[in-house]
């Protein structure tokens, strides 16, 4: 006791808001946070700023390494007038919106099914975690074999069921290529959405349901008046994670379609990769990357403000 009083007695107090804290606690807190912070700042924040600088520059690759000359908005000017760039922007946006919307609807349906059945829950969880932990490249190879136009099993099944009369090269036409890519994405990530929504469902007290059924509500009303409002937090979280992930989509088109046919499935990340590492235009490629980051930031802020209003409503 005496020792600790002495320690605290010598310690200066530090005020934050209405509370007083020990200065030594704050200092050791900062010391314990510093290594993690330093790594994150050095490897993520600093490179992002470096990207911004490169996006305003002409980057020459010489024998002595990269030489960066600032040149103002030239790269962005090229982007704004490039149909290829806008195509990638729209493709990435509708790809993210469509896949995440389908995943949320399917995910909700399946989460409710698991919640209602109650058995098979632990088996389902294990099965769902397998696609979650699967290397995207592997799932892309798997789907490319399934979609194959000559010996793919999808054509075989559809022809056997008399849905198709002749085989289709699924990744060879722009519309079917986009749909094929979306299906592969939905297959891999719907389980993640189910797990998040299931976690939310389990937090809802059974009493609400009992009271609602007592009052004669039907199942449809119960879903829209109780389940859905109380799940909004989980839905928003799953949606945010997935939209942001879908915005950076790269592995799947790289393996499944190569961004094609033509540029039909060229996402922003694919376009930036091509500008950077195929054409070695580091300035232009960086401007594609930075513009993507700006879009992602806007999405984050939209979701966060939606979250805040959810919290303020007390939901």
């Amino acid at each position, binding site marked *: 006791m005496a020792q600790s009083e002495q320690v605290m007695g010598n310690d200066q107090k530090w005020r934050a808001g209405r509370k007083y804290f020990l200065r030594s606690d704050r200092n050791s807190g900062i010391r*314990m946070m510093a290594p993690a912070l330093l790594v994150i700042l050095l490897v993520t924040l600093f490179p*992002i700023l470096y990207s911004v600088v490169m996006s305003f520059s002409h980057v020459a690759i010489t024998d002595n390494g990269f030489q960066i000359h600032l040149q103002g908005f030239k790269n962005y000017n090229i982007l704004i007038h490039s149909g290829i760039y806008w195509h990638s922007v729209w493709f990435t946006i509708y790809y993210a919106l469509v896949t995440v919307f389908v995943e949320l609807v399917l995910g909700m349906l399946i989460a409710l099914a698991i919640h209602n059945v109650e058995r098979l829950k632990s088996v389902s969880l294990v099965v769902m975690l397998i696609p979650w932990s699967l*290397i995207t490249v592997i799932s892309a190879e798997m789907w490319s074999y399934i979609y194959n136009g000559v*010996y793919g099993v999808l054509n075989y099944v559809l022809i056997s069921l008399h849905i198709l009369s002749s085989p289709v090269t699924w990744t060879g036409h722009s519309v079917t290529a986009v749909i094929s890519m979306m299906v592969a994405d939905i297959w891999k990530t719907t389980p993640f959405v189910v797990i998040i929504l299931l976690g939310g469902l389990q937090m809802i007290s059974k009493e609400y349901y009992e009271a609602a059924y007592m009052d004669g509500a039907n199942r449809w009303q119960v879903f829209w008046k109780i389940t859905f409002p109380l799940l909004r937090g989980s839905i928003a979280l799953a949606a945010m994670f997935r939209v942001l992930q879908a915005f950076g989509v790269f592995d799947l088109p790289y393996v499944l379609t190569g961004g094609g046919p033509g540029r039909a499935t060229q996402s922003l990340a694919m376009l930036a990769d091509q500008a950077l590492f195929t054409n070695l235009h580091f300035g232009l490629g960086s401007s594609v990357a930075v513009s993507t980051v700006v879009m992602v930031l806007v999405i984050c802020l939209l979701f966060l403000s939606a979250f805040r209003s959810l919290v303020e409503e007390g939901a």
Partner: protein
Amino acid sequence: MKTKRQVIVGYVVLILFLVAILLPFYWMLVTSIKPDLEISAYPPTLFPHHWTFIHYATAFQQDNFGIYIRNSVIVAICSTFIVLALASMAGFAVARLPIPGKKTVLIALLIISVFPEIAVIAPLYVLLRDVNWLNSYQALIIPYSAFNMPFAVWILRNYFLEVPGALFEAAKMDGASVFQTFYRIFLPLTRPGLFAAAVFTFVASWTEFFMALVFNSSDTMRTIPVGIALFSGQYSEPYGTIFAGSVVSILPIVILVIIFRKWIVSGLTAGAVKG
């Protein structure tokens, strides 16, 4: 309040869903043991007529799949340990110690961690090239540690918050330093959080493709995803080899997931609950 019909519909939806998840895996597995002629046969044989393990032999002997596995294991394990060491300290600090503006810092970090990789790939490539670190383990270990750190700090913070604060005061009364309190008392109590953070980091490092493709493309430094994506055949896609390698690389992760499933799920949902 569940009617019989509700349960039956639930069963049907659930079983369809589980089958839909598992069928492609079945297809991959049987393809990996079919001879090449049968892999590209039409109509496809839903059950292999001939069995062969030649693709497994090709993956390991002709291609360097064994080396890819070694690279992936080294990179994923090192990243996981770095993340656990640094994120547990930071998570404890955020949860238990008075740091000005810590909530803002935490949210900012989380936002940065969900940025698409394309945001950092070009500058990191330039930097790695300047210090001659392209095609090295640290070229992947350092970025993987950084990208997975914020989420790990977040998960661990949630677990540290659940440990009663009185323990912190009590340890201090007994003369323990802040770090001793963290290491001796709090860390053992948050083992589930450590497991969850470890599995997340491991899986993310194991599956990452973009940086691995750009930074470590030389044949002996490839990780599994890059190795599989760059397997090339003489005439067509070597699906036999690709799927043999895939099956081998899926197995350890499936075992990991089965062992740690409880903590993975609670880690995934903890974010939603305490967000």
